[in-house]
């Protein structure tokens, strides 16, 4: 008795083919990376060991894939059942985002053919933040598969399996809330061990996990608004503006909490002056903070929260802000020391762009062929 339906329609549209070409270019450079080594494709060097692939594909990519996580908290922990129609497409987008984050981590691994070593208990270093991230992300991808399985099973007509799965689904939903809380905070904790290399505006020893998980949650609610708006305009679906307005309120609350912690840390540590130093880091900080403040201003007005367009602008600003926060902490504000600098090469960028193109293609295939989007206006 699913209320979700495939939206159907032609698959091989012009935008779809264009995305295919972009994905193919990325694949070409990816093959080069495996044949000749990382330096044939990337600009990584002795000081900048993490580049675009780690920072965009994994750190930013998984934060952008927090829609399923954020909504699960709203629907199943805070019991806001009215958001349930948004749940399935959000889980699917999370699945794609995380699967491709895992893929990004794999292609960036220098010794990828030994990746399974991280899963062997004898090798595990429980002091390592990276171990927690690796195990947790891998497990969460499996959880997302299970959470999304009902959509595939419904398509196959396996009614018994859907019923059986629904009986135990609560365990996986609970894990689906716990695991992202753990690894999204740990992605922030990765910065601690980098010490002085992370510029003071983004380095804070004890608050990294809190800032990371707060911003990831906010990005999660924002990406749901973005994806729903995309479905409304691009795929001519009925608008869910009233529901999205509620998410807008959640974004505003979380963002205010994030900004208080962020600014208070800078003030208490006496680092606020760096924000106005006029150098590259201070400009990036001001840009990032402006992008964080815009959604707060927009969403504080109930009138704006009823406007689909205003909601989308606020969500986009938040997504850019959260992404820039990570980009600043890991790349732009990262200085390995004299003699080292990094800017991604064109082939390196093309691999990342190709991965994103493949992700959008998969989204289009899934919503057209599988019961993902909500069939009618919710009750």
């Amino acid at each position, binding site marked *: 008795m699913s*209320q979700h339906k495939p939206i159907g329609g032609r698959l091989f549209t012009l935008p779809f083919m264009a995305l295919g070409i972009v994905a193919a270019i990325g694949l070409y450079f990816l093959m080069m990376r*495996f044949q000749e*080594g*990382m*330096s044939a494709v*990337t600009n*990584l060097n*002795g*000081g900048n*060991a*993490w580049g675009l692939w780690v920072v965009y594909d994994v750190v930013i990519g998984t934060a952008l894939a927090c829609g399923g996580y954020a909504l699960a908290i709203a629907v*199943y*922990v*805070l*019991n806001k*059942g009215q958001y*349930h129609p948004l749940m399935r497409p959000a889980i699917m987008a999370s699945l794609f985002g995380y699967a491709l984050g895992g893929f990004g*981590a794999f292609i960036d*691994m*220098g*010794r*990828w053919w*030994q*990746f399974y*070593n*991280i899963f*062997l208990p004898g*090798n*595990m*270093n429980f*002091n*390592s*933040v*990276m*171990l*927690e991230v*690796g195990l947790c992300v891998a497990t969460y991808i499996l959880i997302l598969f299970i959470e999304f399985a009902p959509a595939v099973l419904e398509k196959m007509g396996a009614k018994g399996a859907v019923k059986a799965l*629904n009986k135990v*689904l*609560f365990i996986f*939903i*609970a*894990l689906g*809330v*716990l695991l992202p809380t*753990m690894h999204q905070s*740990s992605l922030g*904790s990765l910065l601690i*061990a*980098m*010490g*002085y*290399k992370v510029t003071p505006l983004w380095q804070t020893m*004890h608050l990294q*996990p*809190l800032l990371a998980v707060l911003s990831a949650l906010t990005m999660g609610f924002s990406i749901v608004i973005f994806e729903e708006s995309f479905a409304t305009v691009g795929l001519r679906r009925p608008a869910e503006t009233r529901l999205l307005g509620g998410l807008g309120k959640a974004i505003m609350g979380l963002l205010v909490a994030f900004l208080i912690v962020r600014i208070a840390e800078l003030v208490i540590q006496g680092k606020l002056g760096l924000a106005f130093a006029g150098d590259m880091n201070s400009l990036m900080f001001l840009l990032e903070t402006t992008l964080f403040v815009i959604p707060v201003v927009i969403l504080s007005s109930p009138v704006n929260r009823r406007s689909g367009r205003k909601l989308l602008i606020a969500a986009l600003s938040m997504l850019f802000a959260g992404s820039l926060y990570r980009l600043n902490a890991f790349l732009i504000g990262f200085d390995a*020391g*004299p*003699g*080292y600098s990094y800017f991604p090469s064109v082939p390196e960028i093309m691999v990342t762009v190709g991965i994103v193109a493949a992700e959008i293609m998969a989204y289009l295939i899934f919503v057209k062929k599988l019961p993902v989007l909500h069939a009618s206006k919710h009750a």
Partner: protein
Amino acid sequence: MKRRDFLKAAAGGATALCTSGAATARENLQPTPQAVGMLFDSTLCVGCKACVAKCKEVNDMPPVILNGDVQYDSAKDLSGDTLNVIKIYKNGTAAVKDNEVDGFAFEKRSCMHCVDPGCVSVCPTTSMQRDSLTGIVTYNPDTCIGCRNCTMGCPYNVPQFEYDKPYGQIQKCQMCNQPGVARVDNGLMTGCAEVCPTGATLFGPREELMAEAKRRTVLKPGEIYNYPRGDISKPYSYHEKETPTYKKHIWGEKEAGGTNVLHISSVAFDKLGMPPLEERSYASISEGVQHTLYNFLALPAVALAGLTYVVRKNINSDDNDGGES
């Protein structure tokens, strides 16, 4: 769960998360019982780079060639092919050795063999380890996945991945004691200390090297001092020399928990490219935060139990409302 109860619980969790981090963080690790290391005295280094060449010979690595001119090793920094390099500091006319102004100085860059190593702390697969006896920081490629967190977590950017190879690995100085070389285990000294003509690189137990460094840094400038060469516990020769004006700073005594490779110099270490480190190791802070949050998985287990209960209840109430699960 009522919204109010949830907010209360969440606030409690957030407080625990924020306040306990500092309380339970561990101290810096202490030196291992038989820690070996090296003492690099920048004022003795003449920049001959014999240590760079010997290091390549011991570790079977090719010289770096600059502009197609094969004369000597032209490595400018550490890489997958270079575990040890001599760098130069120059200022103004660069006329006088060991002068900060209008002078020049040499500085050795190689693994410092930290007492509380960042690379060991961050490595997810225990590929980086600190030898429990010698304190040498070792690398095992057989368990390494190539995530390069060791490079990111090293204050000195020492672990270097072989980016130019399709099946590369991390390379770093293992004090010539890696399997197949095992010089230290066999009573020998490191290659770089063995060939150093001036004793600028001196091998030996950390304690003896620290004592030597302390002796040197309190000498009166101009005083004649008898400098040993090779291994401080059994030097193969000595040479007498007027002492320079040492900075009263032994790099590696305290920086980020200290290092087994110690440096002394007449030029301030920040000018020689050493990083801005405090006494507390980043590893100890990072592990403190992580263990506070995880504490043998106790906190996640409790959280999961609570979440399972709440989610189950809310799924059922959805069903009763006629919603789907």
